């Protein structure tokens, strides 16, 4: 008689159960200040993992799109006094459109060029937000942004907000996992591995990349809405170069090609920033050094670190585990010198 559910599913359900009931037994600080932001930053990192790990496109503009969703929501609800649902739809639409436009510019390039162009795009949007008063509110940005209300409860009440973040994160996670198994997802990974061969097979490489970039942009925008509710305001600092890089740090810490890693990385990142900042002012140095160590020594990040013992064991048995071939970031994110 076969088991009703596999160990894997049981484990996943257990983790999900623990996470769902976390506000009941976890400390208020961890629920509100650690896990909630880890979930929405995790969604932003997930969009990068989808692009970098599975599409071979290391984008540094994901936080810009995240921020633009916040700006969209803020402009519509605060500046124009629209109801929250208009803000949500408008914010998502504006950020996804921006992602589509960025994609149009960037997908023609590859590898290192892609990284540079998305970084430049992100920095240009930051400069625009900083200079422009009429729409972006200049240096101060937009203050007093209110989250939607759900049955008389403001969405930013601690436990409620956490649950909303959790549900959104789980849906995003499952969505990405599903997407990667669809024909489109497989084609995307093939584009990462060998764009020329895919083109020869009749696939439109640039179109696949553009679609992936826009989709990832939508994902980042969803995270961005949660982020702007959490902060209650948005300013150019939310999309400055440090933030753009932070999401890359999160994704690399978690493992650039690991869907779960996006959330693990976000959690690790927030724990380090919160706790390192209580005993040293130089927590950015701590983060930078952690990032460097991971890039240099464990390119698969924390999730790779967890897989290491397994790999060592298999090697010791004399059977070379295939996944060990991808221990190199460059290979994990696609060959660059095609």
């Amino acid at each position, binding site marked *: 008689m076969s088991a009703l559910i596999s160990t894997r599913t049981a484990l996943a359900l257990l983790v999900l159960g623990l996470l769902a009931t976390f506000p009941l037994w976890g400390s208020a600080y961890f629920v509100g200040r650690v896990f909630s932001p880890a979930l929405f930053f995790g969604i932003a990192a997930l969009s990068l993992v989808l692009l970098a790990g599975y599409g071979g496109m*290391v984008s540094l503009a994901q936080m810009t799109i995240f921020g633009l969703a916040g700006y969209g929501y803020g402009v519509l609800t605060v500046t124009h006094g629209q109801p929250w649902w208009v803000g949500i739809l408008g914010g998502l639409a504006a950020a996804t459109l921006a992602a589509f436009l960025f994609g149009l*510019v960037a997908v*023609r*390039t*590859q*590898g*290192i*060029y892609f*990284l*540079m*162009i998305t*970084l*430049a*795009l992100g*920095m*240009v*949007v930051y*400069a*625009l937000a*900083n*200079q*422009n*008063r*009429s729409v972006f509110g200049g240096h101060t940005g937009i203050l007093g942004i209110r989250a939607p209300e759900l049955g008389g409860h403001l969405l930013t009440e601690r436990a409620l907000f956490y649950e909303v973040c959790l549900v959104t994160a789980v849906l995003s996670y499952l969505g990405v996992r599903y997407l990667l198994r669809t024909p489109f997802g497989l084609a995307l990974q093939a584009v990462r591995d060998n764009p020329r061969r895919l083109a020869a097979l009749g696939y439109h490489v640039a179109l696949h990349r553009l679609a992936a970039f826009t989709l990832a942009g939508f994902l980042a925008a969803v995270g961005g809405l949660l982020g702007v509710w959490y902060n209650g305001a948005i300013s150019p600092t939310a999309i*400055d*170069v*440090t933030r753009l*890089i932070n999401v*890359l*740090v999160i994704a*690399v810490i978690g493992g650039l090609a690991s869907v779960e890693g996006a959330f693990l990385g976000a959690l690790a990142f927030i724990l380090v920033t919160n706790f390192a900042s209580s005993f040293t*002012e*130089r927590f*950015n*140095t701590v*983060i*930078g*050094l952690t*990032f*460097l160590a991971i*890039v*240099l020594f464990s*390119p698969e990040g924390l999730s790779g670190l967890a897989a290491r013992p397994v790999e060592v064991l298999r090697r010791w048995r004399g059977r070379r585990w295939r996944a060990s071939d991808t221990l*190199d*970031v*460059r290979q994990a*994110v696609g060959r*660059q*010198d095609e």
Partner: protein
Amino acid sequence: MSWNQFVTVTLNGLTLAALYFLVAVGFTLIFGLMRVVNLAHGSLYLFGGYVGWTVADRTGSWILGALAAAAVAAVAGLALQQALLRPIQGQDLREALVTIGVSIVAADLMLAQWGGFTYGFSPPAAISGGARLPVLGIGYPKYRLFILGFALVVGLALWLLLTRTRLGITIRAAIDDRDMVSAVGVNVQRLFALMFAFGAALAGLAGVVGGSALSIASGEDARYLLASLIVVIIGGMGSLAGTAVASLLVALVEQYSLALFPTYAAIVSFLLMVLVLALRPQGLFGRPA
């Protein structure tokens, strides 16, 4: 726009272009030769600026400050290349990630050392104050004219170096085909180290030269990194002429749009980049990948 305003804005654009050229030329040559995108290039600029300021402040000599900035940045660049980049040579994306990590740490350590203050330089008397320009009939700071001249000299020297000397010919050959140059017996590793140190020295020197025209403060690293990125994306990677033309284009467009419609100036440089990428993805002077 009045005539005087037009001339001033144009001159501002030209001197800014000179500064962009000084910063970006090291960035593009390093990329051309080694395929390393040094995202810590802005940090080297800022580091040079801070060190130069400290030395100039202690010794009272601006020139000593500038030389110290170049030397210290060269050493820092060399250390970065030898210690962190050489072990992972050839993996361009990983190298870029490493330089990002370095820039995070560097920005934080420099903030710890020099704080969030703004530092200003006082260049030698011979190049400070204003000058009345003949023909154009307006007054303009001498120092900014000095930057323009200095960048021209550096550009010309680099062009002579690359086209007329044995070292330059080797470098150009290595940009075209590293493996072949290595196969004919050139020590490519030494060439890489030299180029990295040289590019870093130029960035550090630009820190003092540029910092004297504007100022040095934390955050400038990102600004000059962006300028370098846009200049090399537009000009084409690894091209000296491309860097010069793109510096001019970017700086002039930036200054004119700042004068005409200040709040949308950022959009204009974005559009410039988009336009170039749409027409020539490899940049104006770049070769197809």
